[in-house]
């Protein structure tokens, strides 16, 4: 039995009724004529009628045959030649739907997923009974086939766009594993995709190619539901100047507005970028707005300043574009910031402490900020001599500036402060000249190594040279990594360290490779050791460096000490903004006594989360929705925490992968790509057709002969007589 590529065309065979009806019913009304020579007509009538009927019948047959042949030819019959199953034999098929947020792109009032679902429902009906079918989306891995076609159909109906979508290529791999399990001879995978570069990352196609080559019996078909010229504006990943801000302070929220898709002939677009913030549990209100012009090539950069209310707490908000486009899901980004009272930092220095601490104090809490109450840090200054009696607990961090040797008791007190969760920064300077006193049991637990000696640059100047910027302290340098003017903070002297203690880690080194900043954990706290001081003023001719007394406009030193302090306080480790699928971790204040929190997801679902007792934190693993997550405990008067989850901006980039690129990457394993159902059926049949014979061209040839025959018969029938009569 042949199979048909366009079976619907077989309906055309019904048209065969037209000539038959014309032949039977639509007889011509005869014209009445007087004709005396009727006797000649009578003589021949019988024979003529018989011949006439025969000819009419022959013409009718030829015309019917032409219509039938054309209809059958258009249905494109395939005759199976090899042992591949016939067209109605069951197959094993996986139908893969990309359900990433990109598929929410709307065109002609339909999302890409709507289009895919429609075509998917249709496709499921094309499979013969008893076929093994499995429907996969980008979220749920599958291990086996669906129970029956009904279950598969239901799965297609229930598909929805999911922010926590796995990469499409992983889903295809999953489909390959499932389909390979079937014992059916024909194995097929159909992928409904928008063919975006984000889904078909060229660098990962090699693996797909390898797998396709390993399983040549599995045929891959792509159904392109993407829009050929998509146009989308994306609010890029947010960059918060700080996620933890002093109450009443400000934070900068910056982001790129990216333009993706077809750039040709697109004009610049004018939009408003808006920042909304919710306070007092009320609805979000607009706090900032900026008019932007988005160029199709380079997008736009937006920086909005967020002013926080004077009350401490967790604040959640979002930025968005004033008008949404065809893909609304990436026109908004959520953020959470934490407002805290100014952090108390204790600056300890030899006498006179003010002289030592002036630079650092100004760096951490600039004078004007202090005056206006906007400073992030509240720095208290105390002399080394008074440290023994100073209460340390109220301080979130302690800076030890150019310390002179301390008493063993004082060292131990500091060590106890740190091991109980406190943070300490030590900036070694010329007062450590008696280095053996720093190598004693008292200070050594707080230092990462024994001091070996002073390193003097002589006529050479050193500079800080970070190997990488992955450490939270250096993260702020990352966006401008190539243009940080480290050489404007020259280093002349520093303390060389001996072999580092286990657990100690170099965060920052000089360009001669010697450690500059070392981190080590002591108990529950951390200690940062800077091997050069931050207290030498510009006028000091014996200054060891120019970190806080820079040449020209050198800012790296300032940023470094501020970030160090944030790190000590724990702000750097405060992560309140996550990407979809990340495990979120929320640290509780040490004073929090709640053991359980109620988690409310962006869609309003609630669940209970238990506090991890070891490090007093909450872990939320299920972050598949983008939006605001809220954690509450203790009712209205209790604690309210929260975090935000966003889609990575890269996920919704709509640039399409070119067929050539795909073909180049996949080579012989290049799957068929269809944009409509007929093409899909055709390519499916073509795969089968490699072992099949397609009758279309031959049928068309026969049609030509039949039509020529019809023409010939009717010409012989009518024209010749007409000509003969005319003579």
């Amino acid at each position, binding site marked *: 039995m042949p199979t048909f590529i366009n079976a619907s065309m077989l309906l055309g065979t019904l048209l065969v009724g037209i000539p038959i009806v014309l032949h039977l019913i639509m*007889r*011509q*009304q*005869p*014209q*009445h*004529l*007087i*004709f*005396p*020579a*009727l*006797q*000649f*007509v*009578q*003589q*021949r*009538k019988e*024979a*003529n*009628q018989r*011949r*006439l009927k025969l*000819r009419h019948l022959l013409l009718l047959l030829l015309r019917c045959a032409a219509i039938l042949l054309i209809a059958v030819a258009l249905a494109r019959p395939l005759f199976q030649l090899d042992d591949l199953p016939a067209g109605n034999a069951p197959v094993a098929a996986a139908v893969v739907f990309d359900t990433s947020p990109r598929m929410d792109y709307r065109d002609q009032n339909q999302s890409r997923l709507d289009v895919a679902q429609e075509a998917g429902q249709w496709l499921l009906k094309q499979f013969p009974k008893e076929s093994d079918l499995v429907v996969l989306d980008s979220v749920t891995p599958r291990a086996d086939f669906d129970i029956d076609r009904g279950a598969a159909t239901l799965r297609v109906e229930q598909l929805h766009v999911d922010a926590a979508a796995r990469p499409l290529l992983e889903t295809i791999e999953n489909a390959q594993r499932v389909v390979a399990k079937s014992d059916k001879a024909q194995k097929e995978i159909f992928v409904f995709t928008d063919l975006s570069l984000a889904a078909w990352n060229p660098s990962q196609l090699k693996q797909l190619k390898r797998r396709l080559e390993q399983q040549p019996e599995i045929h891959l078909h792509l159904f392109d539901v993407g829009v050929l010229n998509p146009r989308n504006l994306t609010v890029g990943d947010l960059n918060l100047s700080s996620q933890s801000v002093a109450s009443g302070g400000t934070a900068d929220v910056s982001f790129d507005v990216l333009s993706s898709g077809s750039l040709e002939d697109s004009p610049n677009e004018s939009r408003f970028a808006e920042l909304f913030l919710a306070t007092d549990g009320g609805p979000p209100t607009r706090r900032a707005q900026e008019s932007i012009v988005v160029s199709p090539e380079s997008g736009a950069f937006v920086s909005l300043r967020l002013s926080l209310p004077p009350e401490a707490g967790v604040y959640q908000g979002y930025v968005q574009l004033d008008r949404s486009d065809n893909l609304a899901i990436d026109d908004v980004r959520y953020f959470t910031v934490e407002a805290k009272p100014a952090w108390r930092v204790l600056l300890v220095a030899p006498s006179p402490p003010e002289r030592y601490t002036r630079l650092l104090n100004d760096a951490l809490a600039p004078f004007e900020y202090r005056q206006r109450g906007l400073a992030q840090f509240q720095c208290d200054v105390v002399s080394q001599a008074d440290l023994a009696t100073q209460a340390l607990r109220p301080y979130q961090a302690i800076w030890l500036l150019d310390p002179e040797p301390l008493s063993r008791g004082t060292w131990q007190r500091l060590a106890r402060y740190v091991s109980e969760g406190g943070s300490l920064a030590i900036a070694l300077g010329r007062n450590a000249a008696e280095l053996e006193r720093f190598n004693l049991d008292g200070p050594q637990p707080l230092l990462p190594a024994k001091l070996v000696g002073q390193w003097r640059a002589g006529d050479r100047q050193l500079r800080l040279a970070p190997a990488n910027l992955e450490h939270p302290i250096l993260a702020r340098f990352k966006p401008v990594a190539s243009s940080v003017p480290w050489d404007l903070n020259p280093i002349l002297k520093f303390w060389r360290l001996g072999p580092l203690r286990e657990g100690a880690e170099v965060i920052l080194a000089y360009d001669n490779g010697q450690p500059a900043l070392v981190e080590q954990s002591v108990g529950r706290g951390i200690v940062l050791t800077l091997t050069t001081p931050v207290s030498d003023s510009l006028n000091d001719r014996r200054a060891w460096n120019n970190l806080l007394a820079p040449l020209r406009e050198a800012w790296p030193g300032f940023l470094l000490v501020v970030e160090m302090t944030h790190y000590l306080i724990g702000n750097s480790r405060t992560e309140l903004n996550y990407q979809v699928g990340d495990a979120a971790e929320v640290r509780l204040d040490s004073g929090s006594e709640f053991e359980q929190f109620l988690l409310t997801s962006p869609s309003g679902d609630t669940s209970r989360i238990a506090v991890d007792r070891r490090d007093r934190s909450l872990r939320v693993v299920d972050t598949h929705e983008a939006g605001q997550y809220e954690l509450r405990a203790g009712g209205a008067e209790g604690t309210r925490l929260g975090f935000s989850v966003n889609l990575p901006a890269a996920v919704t980039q709509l640039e399409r992968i070119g067929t050539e690129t795909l073909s180049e990457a996949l080579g012989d394993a290049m799957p068929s790509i269809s944009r409509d159902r007929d093409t899909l059926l055709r390519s499916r049949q073509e795969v089968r057709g490699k072992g099949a014979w397609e009758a279309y061209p031959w049928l068309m040839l026969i049609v030509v002969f039949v039509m020529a025959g019809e023409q010939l018969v009717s010409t012989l*029938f*009518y024209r010749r*007589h*007409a000509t*003969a*009569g*005319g003579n």
Partner: protein
Amino acid sequence: MSSANKYLRPEVIRQIGRLDLRAQFIVKGYLQGIHASPYHGFSVEFSEHRKYTKGDDLKDIDWRVYAKTDKYYVKKFEAETNITGYLAMDLSRSMAYTYRQELTKFEYAICLAAAMCYLMIHQQDPVGLVTFDRSIRDSLSPKSKRTQLGHVLSLLSRLEPVGETDIAHSLNQLAAMLRHKSLVMLYSDLLTEPEPVIKALRRLRHGGHDVILFHILDEAEVVFPFDGMVELEEPESSNRLQVDATGFRQDYLAALGEFQELYRHECHQSGVDYVPLDTSMAFDKALTEYLVQRKARF
């Protein structure tokens, strides 16, 4: 075509109302035509010269020819022997048919008969007229006077083809009527059973009469120009038949051909001159046939 020749065409003759003028135009056109034609030998109005033989009237010697040739030639002014001609007109209703020609078969026959009459009177041949349908209706006995032309033409112009016909019977009647050997010129479409007609013709021939059978059909009857489904009605019997004319033409023409061939063959066997004509044909064919016939008798 010369101005006189054009009167040989039916569509031109149609425009001339008076039958005597029609006849005159046809004959004059014809005679003018044959002066320039291979039929030169049929000079009728003018005489011939032949060698003088004993017994010829001396008055008839052409002295001018003698002066030129030194031989005696006799001038033959007009016919020495006369043929008695009978024009036999079929009055059957089918003769009134035409499809798209301007002359019906009957009108065509009348024109031809009138021309023939004109020609014969001119030759001083006696001409008579017989009309028939089921039997003989009118008859004018043959005379060669000039006044006979007027009588014949006036009768011809009054004729109407309205009845059914029995050609064989009428011919038999005619055969019984004829006393002398005559030339019977029969004008008919012959749309009846051929056997009795052929028998009647044989009988006429048996009686020593010469017969010219002018078989006149309408152009449509010869060509069968119809297309598509047609219902054909025979005017005399009102019989009807539905046929697909397009597919039938070949058969019709074959049947007609057989019919004509039958007459041609039988007439040849019997010594009857069979002249098939249709209403689109010029009149000269019929006149020539007459003259050939006349010459053959002398």
